[in-house]
């Protein structure tokens, strides 16, 4: 009833009115930066390369390696993620916030550093290897699996925690009253509720792992996966044709996950959470503590390994504190690259937030048939792995003026990370009162003024979250940017690849630590702004 225009059929005259024109323009821009490069990349594939890739033994070996290691990592990652989500949402352990921060720390550093952490801990000269005088090599299948789990379990945890958090507990109370056994409760209440959203989580984690080259590159050794071949072919040998064929293969899982999510409307959240979890169970609490503490130790071990490696004079011979590696990192253009990274991250955040906001305003608050097409354009980047995006961008932009500048990195990062922040603000706009623009019209306040005076201020915390999302991911990404970085616009994170290639683990550790610290700072600032803001709001209402 309230916005009947949304159901109107579009005539060609209406299609090009002022309202729709802005949507068409934004949709075309998003199409050009998100979809066109991928299509261009697919046209790069020629029959001969296609045949040679699909008839090479190495390809099938890498495919098998990718599938097996990813499957196993996904299983472990989901199990660990579920256990953590359970501990945070279904027990009464203390310091939940602190533990949540600790176990999500791995999300703040590049994937390649997880492999590196494993090498520092379990490699031939590893801290733990020496401690237990073991000799098993971490390189290979198991290294890739453990590294991938380290890299992906925080995402699994966050997604599953989100599902559990919004599960209504009233049915369980009813079942308890009726004396229904726990097993039956799981199969009859829990399972149907979590099934579909869990499939989404599994897809997301699988895609994340199978398209990552950082972990297998650092700790895979001779165990090569598809992303590593893509990386080595396209970045190392500039063989874009072979890269494109593998890119096409890597598009399959990402696209499948995207389409599944698109058609899976069942996001899990109960329509009404009548009751949240509030049972008291000491045994569960103890198990919960065990899970989060052990995981925190695991996470801390990796970070600890960076500190040891980065700040010991000469690990493992001379363990005295030294800034030697720190200085060396910054003497080899490290300072310039760090500055590049911060600049890229800040500008990506600003550009990303502005475009995501504008797009979400058009889709969430000016609904029409075109909004749905625009919405699809805005989330389509979810279907493109960073590695594939980077390859397609280098193919399209190699000979243009922006290649080699930080502009290209800002564009590719904005595109790469666009979907999640867009969805954050889309949801925030959608939840706002539907009549605000009507009020503006009646009071004689222009739409633009309403946006700046009412709509934006009401979503300020979402905007800050979006900014931080773009920033943190731009700081730590090594996927798309690795194809577009030159000696002048290189971001700091890619120094890890470079130092690792020279076996300078100490400097690589310094880089990983620096990225962690900067991202933690960003997260800390966001946290402060939110707490102070909310405290102020509370004081005003009292």
């Amino acid at each position, binding site marked *: *009833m309230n916005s*009947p225009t949304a159901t109107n*059929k579009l005539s060609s005259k209406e299609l090009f009115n002022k309202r729709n024109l802005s949507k068409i323009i934004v949709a075309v821009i998003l199409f050009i930066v998100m979809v066109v490069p991928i299509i261009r990349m697919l046209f790069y594939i020629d029959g001969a390369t296609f045949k040679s890739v699909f008839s090479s033994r190495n390809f099938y070996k890498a495919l098998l390696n990718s599938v097996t290691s990813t499957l196993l990592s996904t299983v472990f990652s989901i199990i660990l993620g579920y256990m953590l989500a359970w501990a945070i949402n279904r027990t009464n352990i203390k310091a939940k916030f602190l533990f949540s921060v600790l176990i999500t720390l791995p999300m703040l550093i590049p994937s390649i550093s997880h492999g590196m952490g494993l090498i520092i801990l379990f490699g031939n000269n590893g801290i733990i290897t020496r401690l237990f005088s073991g000799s098993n090599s971490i390189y290979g299948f198991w290294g890739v699996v453990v590294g991938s789990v380290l890299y992906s379990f925080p995402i699994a945890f966050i997604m599953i925690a989100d599902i559990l958090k919004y599960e209504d507990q009233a049915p369980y109370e009813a079942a308890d009253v009726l004396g229904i056994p726990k097993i039956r409760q799981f199969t009859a209440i829990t399972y149907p509720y979590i099934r579909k959203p869990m499939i989404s989580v599994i897809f997301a984690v699988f895609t994340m792992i199978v398209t990552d080259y950082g972990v297998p590159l650092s700790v895979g050794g001779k165990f090569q996966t598809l992303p590593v071949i893509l990386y080595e072919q396209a970045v190392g040998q500039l063989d874009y044709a072979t890269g494109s064929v593998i890119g096409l293969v890597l598009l399959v899982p990402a696209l499948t996950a995207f389409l599944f999510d698109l058609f899976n409307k069942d996001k899990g959240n109960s329509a009404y959470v009548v009751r949240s979890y509030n049972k008291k169970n000491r045994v569960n609490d103890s198990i919960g503590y065990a899970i989060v503490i052990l995981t925190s130790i695991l996470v801390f071990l990796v970070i600890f390994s960076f500190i040891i490696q980065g700040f010991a004079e000469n690990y493992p011979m001379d363990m005295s504190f030294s800034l030697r590696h720190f200085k060396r990192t910054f003497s080899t253009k490290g300072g310039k690259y760090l500055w590049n990274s911060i600049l890229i991250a800040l500008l990506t955040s600003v550009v990303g937030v502005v475009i995501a906001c504008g797009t979400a305003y058009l889709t969430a608050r000016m609904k029409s048939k075109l909004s749905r097409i625009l919405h699809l354009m805005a989330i389509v980047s979810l279907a493109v792995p960073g590695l594939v995006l980077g390859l397609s961008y280098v193919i399209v932009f190699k000979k243009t003026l922006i290649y080699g500048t930080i502009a290209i990195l800002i564009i590719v990062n904005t595109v790469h990370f666009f979907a999640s922040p867009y969805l954050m603000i889309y949801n925030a706009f959608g939840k706002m009162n539907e009549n*605000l623009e009507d009020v503006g019209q*009646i*009071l004689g306040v222009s739409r633009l003024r309403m946006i700046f005076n*009412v709509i934006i201020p009401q979503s300020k915390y979402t905007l800050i979250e979006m900014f931080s999302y773009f920033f943190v991911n731009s700081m730590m990404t090594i996927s798309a940017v690795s194809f577009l970085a030159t000696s002048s616009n290189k971001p700091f994170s890619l120094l890890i690849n470079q130092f690792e290639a020279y076996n300078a683990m100490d400097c690589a550790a310094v880089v990983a630590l620096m990225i962690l610290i900067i991202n933690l700072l960003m997260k800390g600032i966001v946290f402060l702004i939110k707490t102070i803001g909310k405290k102020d*709001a509370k004081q005003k209402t009292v």
Partner: protein
Amino acid sequence: MKLQVIDLSKTFDTKEAVKNVSFDVEEGEFLSILGPSGCGKTTLLRMLIGLITPTSGVILKDGVDITNAPPSKRKMGFVFQNYALFENMTVLENVEYALKIHKETKGIAHSTALALIEKMGLSEHMNKKPDSLSGGQQQRVAIARTLALHPDVILFDEPMSALDVATRLSLRKELKNIQKEYNTTMIYITHDQEEAFAMSDKILVMDTAVAVQHGTPEEIIKHPTNEYVKNFVVENLKIKIDSLSKYIDMTNE
């Protein structure tokens, strides 16, 4: 000020939401538009304010055709069922916002807003944000915000359907007082027969998309034009009164 609605219609796709509705509203009159959900009341009201363009028909205000005038040029106010307050602003800021935006009223914005807030009994809440107020208080803020621009006509879209009975009764009285004090014309949408009869000078009864009767409450009770008015309005009203009257008798005993 006189409002004339002539043959107003609105068609969405193929669905006729409002069909050839005509009625007049005199200055200072309280008109209720009464009808069940989905009968086209809200569409009618949104055409009056200018949020929806009619497919055909004319709206005259003091003889001037305002059918296609922008909402802000009609000197009309609109109160929404869900309040539609600016959550990021305090009560005071909500009320003075529109006044501050327009150059002519900028100077008097603060004093006007303060007076209205006091009138609506919100003085002690004026520095609070809407989300810390009750539904009734929020609706008072919305009414104050509307009154700030001195509209000739205020349109109400089921403003009390989310409120509890006690709040409704007190708000009803206040609306009537405001109507008298400012001599403001009010057009009020409701699906509640009792509310319509308690508050209105005139009632427009709607069935699906069409207006079936327009008259004073007495006229409608005494001479319902057809079976629908008789059943939907008169009979329902009787049932409500019957079910309550035995308690009224009890209190008399």
